[in-house]
């Protein structure tokens, strides 16, 4: 769906994007991460067709964003950073205007607008003037705008900016649902959000792509280990030792207890999944197991460490 080949973007003599190449397949939900000033917004602006690349090629659904700009733009729903809107319009007026610009007229327009209003939970404020809405609602109007006309590709620049935790969870659910039949590229400062929503993460630093993989693998690759958590009922003094004796397990410790169930944190080699063997060892000892999962909590640490390492390099 997205193919970026040796993309360079300069502002004057300042190079913001330096030889970026990446690919996003149809149906993927990809997160773009990076510290401030890494080039996330510029990347999204180039992909959306707003900024022309200084050199390199950007294809959206097979169409070049420079030479076949209109064809490329027809496939994109774009939410710019801070969701800029016309403050003097009402929500419904704004969405109707945007729908007409995207080529929806008459009944198709009404139906399209109605659909995004209900998807983004905006039905109650449809008659309100945008300038009087809270930041969270404005963000949702921007998101609704990007969804009008059901574009194949959604490019969302910081979609959760200004939302409260509840709204953020709703947004996460919405993007996950959209991810079923859309390709989504989103940028975010919130690592947990990217972890929770995205199939894959692309990390950008100073205009370069420094990593592109699942959050779990990035964490694993950087931290040198993976973490599995388990809840087991059995004799406290034997559980941790039994699991630690397994191959590839580096460390196993009990980090909590709840009415007889011990919460274990198991560190293992990064390229091995020890979950089946943990289950087997618990079963063979006749203990009980009620939870067993691979944690991705190392991701935030991994990200911070990676950026620190790159800054020192």
């Amino acid at each position, binding site marked *: 769906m997205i193919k970026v080949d040796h993309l360079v973007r300069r502002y004057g003599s300042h190079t913001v994007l330096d030889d970026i190449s990446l690919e996003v397949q149809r149906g993927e939900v990809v997160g773009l991460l990076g510290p401030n000033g890494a080039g996330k917004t510029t990347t999204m602006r180039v992909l959306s067709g707003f900024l022309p690349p200084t050199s390199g090629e950007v294809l959206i659904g097979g169409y070049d964003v420079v030479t076949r700009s209109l064809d490329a733009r027809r496939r994109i729903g774009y939410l710019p950073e801070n969701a*800029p809107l016309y403050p003097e319009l009402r929500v419904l007026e704004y969405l109707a205007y*945007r729908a007409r610009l995207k080529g929806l007229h008459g009944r198709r327009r009404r139906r399209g607008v109605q659909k995004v209003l209900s998807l983004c939970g905006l039905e109650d404020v449809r008659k309100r003037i945008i300038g009087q809405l809270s930041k969270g609602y404005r963000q949702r109007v921007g998101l609704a*705008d990007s969804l009008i006309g059901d574009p194949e590709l959604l490019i969302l620049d910081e979609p959760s900016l200004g939302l409260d935790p509840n709204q953020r969870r709703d947004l996460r659910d919405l993007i996950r649902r959209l991810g079923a039949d859309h390709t989504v590229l989103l940028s975010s400062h919130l690592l947990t959000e990217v972890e929770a929503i995205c199939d894959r993460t692309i990390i950008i630093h100073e205009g370069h792509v420094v990593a592109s993989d699942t959050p779990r693998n990035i964490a694993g690759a950087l931290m040198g280990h993976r973490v599995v958590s388990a809840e087991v009922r059995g004799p406290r003094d034997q559980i941790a030792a039994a699991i630690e004796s397994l191959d590839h397990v580096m460390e196993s410790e009990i980090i909590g207890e709840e009415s007889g169930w011990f919460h274990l944190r198991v560190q293992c080699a990064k390229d091995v999944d020890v979950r089946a063997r943990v289950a087997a060892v618990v079963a063979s000892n006749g203990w009980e197991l009620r939870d067993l999962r691979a944690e991705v909590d190392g991701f935030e640490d991994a990200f911070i460490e990676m950026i620190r390492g790159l800054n020192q390099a």
Partner: protein
Amino acid sequence: MRKFLVMWQKELAGYFLSATAYLTMCVFLAVTGWTFVWTLSKNEAPGDPLTVLIAISVTMWMPIVITVVTMGLFAEEKRSGTLECLLTVPVTEWQVVMAKYAGAMSFVVVMVAPTAGYLFILPAVGVQVPSLDLGSLLSGYLILALIVGFCTAMGLLISLLTRNQVVSAMGCFCAVCVPFVMGGVSRAVPQPASDVLAYLAADEHLLGFARGMVDTRPIVLYVSGTMLVLFLTVRVLESRRWM
């Protein structure tokens, strides 16, 4: 075409659904009306025809009007970031520029058109006026429309070069004043420069047309000038060099 109409409609709504627009119109009509009455009182026989007086009264306020109308056209969209939304939907830069231009021109035309009514109000309130030459009136308004069209295009281009409305307003005001001072400058410089400048002098064109002397050269000048400036505006927008 349909997208141009959608955007033009949005621009028109932006003008005509706001109280500021009607306030601007009222102030403009009051000020030009006062100027017209003042020039009329200073106009001793044989003097200038009424069509010249009305053209002068309207034109002298045009730099301010065009500045107010055009200063925010692109600058405001750039400042608030909505230009990014506008240019990432499937519309061409030509459609965007022409819709903004058409919107601004529509507003100025609606604002200026009622000034022709002053000439018909005078006899109604009992002022003795010589017979009115309709041809001169029409040609006067024709050249006024062409000059305004050119100046509005310049204002549009300048508002695209900055995101600050104050900078845009100052730049636009200076640029729009240039054609009107050409006549004065041409009289101050030696030939052959004065001939060239006189050809570009908007005030001279205006006086000629308002007296009923229709000349095709200024028409060609303003139409081609407007097209050139609009073309430049589209090119600047396409390059996004100043975004």
